[in-house]
Each structure stands twice: as structure tokens, then as C-alpha cells.
């Protein structure tokens, strides 16, 4: 479904991704783990066209994504929830969702599905996004990306800084997405979350995927966690 082959990318003269290859399949959760600076977020930004590739290719269902204008990529069915949520603070919950819905022309049915997934957002539709709690903001960020009805969902540390009840809710959402046949790419640093959610785990080191393993083959004591994540 989503494939990256031999991708080189970075920021100006600083090369971060060095021949990175990666794949995500429909109906699977692929967790991406690695130390700070390994290239996890840069990989997601490269998929979204936010940074140009200097080599390699990225494709979704065989269609090349690299080289497309960045705004075209979400329209092809890739949702992205970056670190830090980045909502449109002065707009209401309803308006934030509407902006997501307008892109691909999805209407009431998609909106209802998102609100069924996050009933708390339904209670806050008229509230401005900046006044929501951290967990509610994360729900809205994910809900807004879901309005695109994505085939692939990229989540960059979605549970960072959230209280336990919210973390559980976000994890339930990831499972629901998998059940809907979405390919989920989850950047996550918590081992217990990875083992609970992932179908496969890709370990990133110095801009490359060093190893990809089925999550079922990993235990909390697996040496890969110490080697690639440092825990």
C-alpha cells in the first residue's frame, strides 16, 4: 500500500534519511521506533511532501507521491496528525472538522462517524478549539484527519503528555482504524503501547529502517528495544 524505497531526505545540507525503505499495509498498525533524531518524524514529513527527497521514491497503491505538491497528498488519502496537535485555535470544534471534511468533499456521514468515535467532541461542537483540554485537542486533531477518510493514517506520538484515560481512548481509536482497514503508521516510544497495538515494528536508526519485525515476535525484554530505542 504505502511504500518508501531508498529515500534520502533532510533539511538543507543536513541529510536525515539515508536510503530509508519502509512499507505499511492496509488493516495493519506499523509502529516506528527509534532514538531522538533517528529520523522518525522526518520520515512522516517526507511522506507528506513537507521536505523534498534527494533520492528514492514514495508511492501509495503504486502512485508516486514524491514530487507532488504537498497539498495534493492528503487528497490522495493520507491523514497526518503531527506532534503538538496544531489545531486552529480560534475556530470551533465543528469548524475544525468542517475544514477536514471540505478537502475531499465528504459530508454528514463522515462527520457522524468521527463524532461517534469521539462522543466528547459532539458535546463540544460549539466550543473553540483553544479552550479544549489536551486530550480533547488530540481527539480533535485525529478526528479532523479522519474527515479525509484516509487510507493511511500517520500518527506522531499521539499519546504524548496525555492522562491515562485519554491514552486508552487514543489506543482504542488506533484499533478501530485498523478494523476499518486503514494502514496506521504510529510513531511511539512506549514499549507497552507498541506491544499492545502493533502488528509490525520498524526500528529506525541513523535515517534507515534497521530492522522490521512482527510485534508478536517481541517481548518487553527484546534486545531491539535496548539497541534502537535505548530502554
Amino acid at each position: 500500500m504505502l511504500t518508501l524505497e531508498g529515500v534520502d531526505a533532510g533539511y538543507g545540507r543536513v541529510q536525515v534519511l539515508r536510503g530509508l525503505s519502509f512499507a505499511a499495509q492496509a488493516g495493519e498498525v506499523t509502529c516506528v521506533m527509534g532514538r531522538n533524531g533517528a529520523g522518525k518524524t522526518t520520515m512522516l514529513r517526507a511522506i507528506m511532501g513537507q521536505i523534498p527527497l534527494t533520492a528514492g521514491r514514495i508511492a501509495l497503491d503504486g502512485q508516486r507521491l514524491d514530487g507532488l505538491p504537498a497539498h495534493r497528498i492528503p487528497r490522495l488519502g493520507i491523514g497526518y496528525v503531527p506532534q503538538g496537535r496544531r489545531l486552529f485555535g480560534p475556530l470551533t470544534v465543528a469548524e475544525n472538522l468542517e475544514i477536514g471534511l471540505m478537502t475531499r468533499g465528504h459530508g454528514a456521514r463522515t462527520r457522524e462517524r468521527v463524532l461517534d468515535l469521539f462522543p466528547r467532541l459532539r458535546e463540544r461542537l460549539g466550543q473553540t478549539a483553544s479552550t479544549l483540554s489536551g486530550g480533547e485537542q488530540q481527539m480533535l486533531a485525529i478526528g479532523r484527519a479522519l474527515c479525509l477518510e484516509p487510507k493511511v493514517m500517520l500518527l506522531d506520538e499521539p499519546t504524548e503528555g496525555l492522562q491515562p484515560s485519554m491514552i486508552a481512548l487514543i489506543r482504542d481509536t488506533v484499533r478501530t482504524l485498523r478494523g476499518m482497514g486503514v494502514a496506521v503508521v504510529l510513531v511511539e516510544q512506549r514499549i507497552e503501547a507498541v506491544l499492545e497495538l502493533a502488528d509490525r515494528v520498524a526500528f529506525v536508526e541513523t535515517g534507515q529502517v534497521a530492522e522490521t519485525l512482527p510485534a508478536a515476535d517481541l517481548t518487553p525484554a527484546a534486545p531491539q528495544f535496548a539497541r534502537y530505542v535505548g530502554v
Partner: protein
Amino acid sequence: MRMIALHLAVLAVLAALQFVLPAYHHTNAARIMVLATYAIGFNIAFGYSGLLSLGHALFFAGGMYATGLLVDQGGWQPWLALVAGPLAGGALAAAVGLLALRTAGPAFMIVTLMFAQAFHLAILYWGRFTGGDEGFTLSGAARRIGAFDLADPATRYTAAFLLFGAAMLGCLALARSRTGRVLVAVRENEERTRMLGYDTFRAKLFALALSGLISGAAGATYGLMFGYVGGSFASIQYSILPLIWVLLGGAGTVLGPLLGTALMFYLIDWASSVTTASQFVVGAVLILLVLFAPRGLLGLVRDHAMRRLP
């Protein structure tokens, strides 16, 4: 619904004022409404879309000169020249935007400022056609649109009111529309908006062109209403003024431009009647504004009393 009623009530008050204001304030009110229209144009770029241009005098004066030159030297019918003014403002803004929107932040401010300065210098350089720094006046015939004579105070007030009303209701419709929400999204976080599938360059270009069109309409109307087209309207002062009006009234609010323009107009009027250091008074007010109401007066109202004020 309450918000629409509030804006219609403001228009009703403005419509009624012309029957009660003394002559001096009657003329001032007409002038304020046209300048507030210019501020509404500026606000669409700055307040709603986050584009801080320092070259809006180009669009205001562009509309004014297009209309003035066409009617004065081109022999065009005033109504036709009045249509050409906004189009000139919009076209200039689109042309500037195609280049300037490839930059952001301070670079955008400088590029827009340079375009406006170039236009100002062009007016001075080709003084044979433009009247240079002194500008030129428009004859009585040039200010007559059909049976309506813009030299007549009542007609002038009505023209200013119609222009302002159209701009204000248009801005209200934009603020409540999907397009308006996308512009706010671009202002808040352009990269995130792009990641939701929006061509943010096109959105900003639309905002700037619309802003230029409204600014051009204000300039064209101002020229015909007061019978004068001058180089000073293209100077940097006329790029800074709408910024001050909008900051004072409240950026990103529909009524803020009117409030800011009216308050600043009368503040300068009052300060210059009591002291020769009127600019000092204006400066002090602006410092107080930045300290105590950085989002402008209506921004303050929105934060504390009317959260849904558009």
C-alpha cells in the same frame, strides 16, 4: 442570527446618522466610511488571512488613479471608470501576490512595501500624466453618475454608505463562509492547512486579490467623492494607516475596521485642535493599545463578552 442582527443594526445607525449629523461631521462620516472600506479590504488580508502587507497604498491609490485618469484623461463615463478602479486594485494585488506570496513574514512586508514605493515613485516620475505630487482635481462632470452628483453632500454620504455596507456585508459573508474558515486556518497554521489538502498559496492569493479589489473600490470612490487624486495616497503613510485602524478596532473582526477608523480619525482631529504635537497623542494611544488591548477593541470584546463575534 444575533450577530447578523448586530451588523445590520450598525448599518441602520449609519443610515440614520446622515439625517441628524451637522455638516462638518456629515462629511467626516462619509470620509470615514470610505476609509473604513479600505480598512475592511486590508483586514481581509491581514486580519483574516495573516498577510501583513506594507504596500496596500498601491491598491488604494491604484484604484483611485485608474478611475481618476480614465475619467479625466480617457474621457470614460464616471460609472465605467468607477468599475475600473476596483478591478485595477484587484489586478495589481493579484500581480503583486504572485511574486510576494512566495515569501513570508518580514520578507513579504518588505516586498509589498517596495512595490508600493515603486508605484509612488512612478506617479511622481510621470507627473505629466499623473499631476505628480500635487495630483489633479476632477471636474464637476467627472463626478456625476447619471442623475447623482457626488459633489452633493447627501449623495456623497449615500455613496459612501452603499460602498461601506456592501464591503461590510461581503466581509461578514466571507467570515461566515467555508472560504473564510480556510483563510483563518491559513492564518493560524499554514503548514497544517496544507496537510489537510488545501492549496494555501491559492487561498492567500485569493485573499490578497479580494483585499486589493476592495481597497481599489475605496480609492476609486474616494477620488470621485472628493474630486481629488493625489500622489500622497500612494505614500507609505496610506499603507500604515489601515494597519493602525485595523489594530485599533480589532483585526479579524468585521466591525473592527469601522471602529478603528472612526476612533483614529476623531482622535487625530481632536488632538490637532488642542496641541501641535498631535502625533505624540496618537503614539501614546497606540502604546496603550498594544499594552492593554493587543487584539484591538473588538478583540477585547470578543475575548471577554462575545466569543462568536465574526
